[in-house]
């Protein structure tokens, strides 16, 4: 108990020292440049954040951006898992879909955003872009997780008379969980980056990306910094929530 508290305190102290160090570096760079329009100081950025936080539009933008990214991410996860399972099960499906996956991986996200703008309403475009970025990551990881799942353990289940659905739920799914979770974490980061990039380009109503673009156009650099910080914090928050939600499925407890 005492050791655990000491470990926690040490970790907090380390985080505070690291944060203070980088804030100081930021402050020094800002002082050296001497122009808020180029590099605003941490205080100016914080003030810009407080300023934005006074308006209802900011909260609406946060909510809508969060919603778009979560929906796109969830769709990417669902279809990624489905695609992976079908690919393992049916080689013809794998053969037909692999060029599409390669294409998604190879084409720059900005090209997709510009192309999709022609077909999709700007409000829904970030959802589509998030989906597109998350899909191949989940698909690849889950597919390789299923393919590399320890066949000997599956054999053991068969010999002990477990039904196919029991082998799936009691052996296969827990075995692929680590690769699925690592894919979730990686793709969540991509979802945020691509989702906000899509918002910046297509400027949907009530969006953090749209606010970022406006701030850039009006040379409100402190707001750009503040909005970037908000995006990073929301991404971290979502990552932490997902990590907590799936902790019981991870290998942490026995590794």
């Amino acid at each position: 108990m005492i050791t655990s508290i000491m470990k926690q305190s040490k970790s907090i102290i380390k985080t505070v020292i690291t944060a203070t160090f980088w804030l100081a570096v930021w402050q020094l760079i800002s002082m050296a440049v001497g122009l808020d329009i180029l590099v605003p100081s941490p205080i100016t950025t914080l003030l810009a954040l407080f300023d934005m936080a006074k308006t209802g539009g900011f909260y609406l933008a946060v909510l809508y951006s969060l919603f778009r990214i979560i929906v796109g991410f969830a769709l990417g996860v669902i279809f990624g898992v489905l695609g992976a399972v079908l690919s393992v099960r049916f080689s013809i499906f794998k053969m037909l879909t692999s060029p599409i996956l390669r294409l998604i991986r190879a084409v720059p996200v900005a090209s997709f955003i510009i192309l999709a703008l022609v077909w999709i309403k700007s409000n829904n475009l970030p959802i589509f872009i998030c989906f597109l970025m998350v899909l191949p990551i989940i698909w690849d990881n889950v597919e390789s997780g299923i393919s590399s799942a320890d066949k000997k353990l599956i054999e053991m289940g068969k010999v002990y008379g477990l039904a196919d659905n029991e082998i799936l739920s009691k052996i296969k799914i827990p075995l692929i969980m680590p690769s699925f979770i690592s894919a979730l974490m990686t793709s969540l980061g991509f979802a945020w980056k691509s989702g906000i990039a899509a918002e910046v380009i297509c400027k949907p109503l009530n969006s953090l990306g749209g606010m970022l673009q406006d701030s850039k156009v009006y040379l409100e650099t402190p707001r750009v910094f503040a909005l970037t910080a908000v995006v990073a914090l929301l991404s971290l928050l979502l990552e932490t929530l997902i990590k907590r939600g799936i902790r019981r499925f991870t290998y942490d407890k026995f590794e």
Partner: protein
Amino acid sequence: MINLNNVSFSYGDKKILENFNLKVEAGERICLFGESGKGKTTVLRLILGLEIPNSGNAVIEGKASVVFQENRLLPFETVLGNIRTVKGDEEKARKLLEKFGLSDYAEKYPRSLSGGMKRRVAIIRALCSDFDFLILDEPFAGLDKENIELAAQIINEYSKDKAIILVTHSEWEASLLGAKIVNI
């Protein structure tokens, strides 16, 4: 109960078994004995239905329980969880863990067990399920003499009147289980 009739089996071009015959009656105990690569484990896999013979037929009646050559414990389940997963008798498992001196490890994950402990858990799992015949593929690998004797004694106690098909390189281990040597 187990009848392999003129069974031939090959992995690709490599012939493993040719016109192999084996008959094991209920309660009978045999030990497949022979050099490595002669197909002992393949015979066990044929009995377990994990391989299909290229020719001949395999008639297997009854339910199998098995100690594989590897422990094959689920890394994400505790010792008892591993037994529960294969629908093993939990009460029996607790008794056996006590007999093997592993009671304190019931809720531990395989990662925290030594090689010998994992082997004993694999034996316990096999004994806790409902079976008509027991397949033991080098079941005592990694155990010291004392633990081999203990494990053999426990296997004998918990598989009375059940058939045993054992694979080992040690005649002494076969004798501990009262298994008749069948050269392969």
